[in-house]
């Protein structure tokens, strides 16, 4: 009975925590520009994410190591440091984007510009970290995030042609705008396969003291939670494809994105979108700040637990305090969060090998995992998707940047 409750809670938190500014912006842009054509990228990214999240939980349950612990131990400090720099820089960009998303949601609700919101928003996020506990952050934030289910309602009400939705799960090339298409595919993959989610998930498994008896549960949570989350992303794309594309409306700015659900849900669509973004980005900002602080604390074995008061893990608290405050600065200087988001997502794809290849080594390590090592199916699926995202990123990022 207790297990069923835990599984339900786990799935709910994964669904509530799945959408954030990256997945919404990339899916909305893709739908507005290419209709259903890029659905395959969300599906592919979600499949890869299911495997990765399952792996992170399994590593923690069997070896009692988080990914970062194991990476530092197995690959040594110099390599670890290299990965740390890459991951923290990308996660930092994503954090800026999420804080910008919260600020924008407040802007469309209140009329006050997002640069004004940057500092108060980052202070609230910081205060949650300072005073909150792990379960408050994980459960509270993602329960609020359940408002994103309204995207599924919107997609349902627009009554899409399900056979062409299904057909778009196989990749095809568009006749024009190939570069933009590739760049969007890369950004969608980056938004779906977010490494910070793995670090957060494996740290959570350690904080909740998982052991081998959790392996089956972990599979169910990863499988269902991420699938349902991916379905939500797909719904965002469907809504954009049906509501925005016929009018030629693109999602280059946030005020345009705010119109996403007004066709499907004429009365509440606007407010549901604003609150979806507010809560989803808030939850994601907390998770990313925690993931960055975990990365340092675990890598150097400082005390770390979101359940202790700050002075009991001073260096851990110090890291997230600095990171959150610094990330407010670019927003106060009017950096466009949507541009930061697209760049952050594309760079996530480009740096995936850095995050995933060492992780694959760890997941095949008999010392850590014994008979719970990866099988060849898991290895190949993850390896191939990472290779695809990397190659696409290497080709399309320069083309996008130089090609206009």
């Amino acid at each position, binding site marked *: 009975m207790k297990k069923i409750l835990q599984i339900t809670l786990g799935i709910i938190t994964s669904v509530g925590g799945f959408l954030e500014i990256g997945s919404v912006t990339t899916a909305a842009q893709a739908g507005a520009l290419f209709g259903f054509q890029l659905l395959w990228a969300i599906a592919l990214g979600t499949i890869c994410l299911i495997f990765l999240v399952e792996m992170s939980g399994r590593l923690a349950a069997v070896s009692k190591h988080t990914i970062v612990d194991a990476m530092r131990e197995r690959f040594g400090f110099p390599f670890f440091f290299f990965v740390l720099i890459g991951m923290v820089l990308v996660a930092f960009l994503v954090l800026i984007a999420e804080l910008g998303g919260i600020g924008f949601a407040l802007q469309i609700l209140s009329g006050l510009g997002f640069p004004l919101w940057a500092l108060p928003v980052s202070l609230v996020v910081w205060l949650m970290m300072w005073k909150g506990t792990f379960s408050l952050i994980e459960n509270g934030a993602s329960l609020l995030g359940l408002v994103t289910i309204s995207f599924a309602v919107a997609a349902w009400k627009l009554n899409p042609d399900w056979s062409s939705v299904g057909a778009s799960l196989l990749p095809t090339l568009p006749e024009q705008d190939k570069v933009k298409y590739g760049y969007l595919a890369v950004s969608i993959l980056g938004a779906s396969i977010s490494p910070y989610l793995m670090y957060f998930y494996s740290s959570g498994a350690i904080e909740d003291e998982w052991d081998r008896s959790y392996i089956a549960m972990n599979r169910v949570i990863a499988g269902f939670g991420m699938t349902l989350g991916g379905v939500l992303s797909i719904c965002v794309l469907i809504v954009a494809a049906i509501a925005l594309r016929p009018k030629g409306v693109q999602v280059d700015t946030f005020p345009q994105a705010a119109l996403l659900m007004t066709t499907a849900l004429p009365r509440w669509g606007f407010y549901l979108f604003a609150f979806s973004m507010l809560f989803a980005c808030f939850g994601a900002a907390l998770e990313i700040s925690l993931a960055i602080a975990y990365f340092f604390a675990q890598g150097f*074995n400082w005390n770390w637990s979101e359940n202790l*008061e700050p002075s009991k893990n*001073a260096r851990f608290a110090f890291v997230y305090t600095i990171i959150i405050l610094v990330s407010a600065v670019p927003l106060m200087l009017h950096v466009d969060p949507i541009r930061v988001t697209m760049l952050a997502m594309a760079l996530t794809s480009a740096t995936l090998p850095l995050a995933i290849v060492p992780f694959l080594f760890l997941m095949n390590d008999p010392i850590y995992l014994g008979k719970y090592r990866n099988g060849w199916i898991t290895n190949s699926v993850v390896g191939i998707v990472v290779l695809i995202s990397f190659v696409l990123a290497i080709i399309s990022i320069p083309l996008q940047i130089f090609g206009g």
Partner: protein
Amino acid sequence: MDLVRDVLDKKLVDREQCDMGRASGLIMQFGEKTQPHITHILIGGPTLWMRIHPALGRASEKLARLWGPKSKEPVRIPWSHVETVGKDIKLDVVAKDTGALDWEIWIARHFIERIPGGGHEEEE
């Protein structure tokens, strides 16, 4: 047992299971005809940076003298205090007395405790 795989970069915990960093370095002693053996485990910044590049190691040594707790780095734990080497390395020491927590305490005193709601690191 293998040194790099099983000892270096492993977590160090003290008698009371308190985390005290990772094994950043190991000192080995050798002579002309005697078998080399490990004398100390090192913890701390300059040891780590030295592994990336000697210049970084020297810079971090200089910086540590100007700023921070100004303790005598690196922290050296004699191998004779090693209890077991497994998932962690258990040491028969008290973390606070070794100097491994100097930075933790310094940051707690200088930043965290001064922010309202930060608590105090010495309360139990």
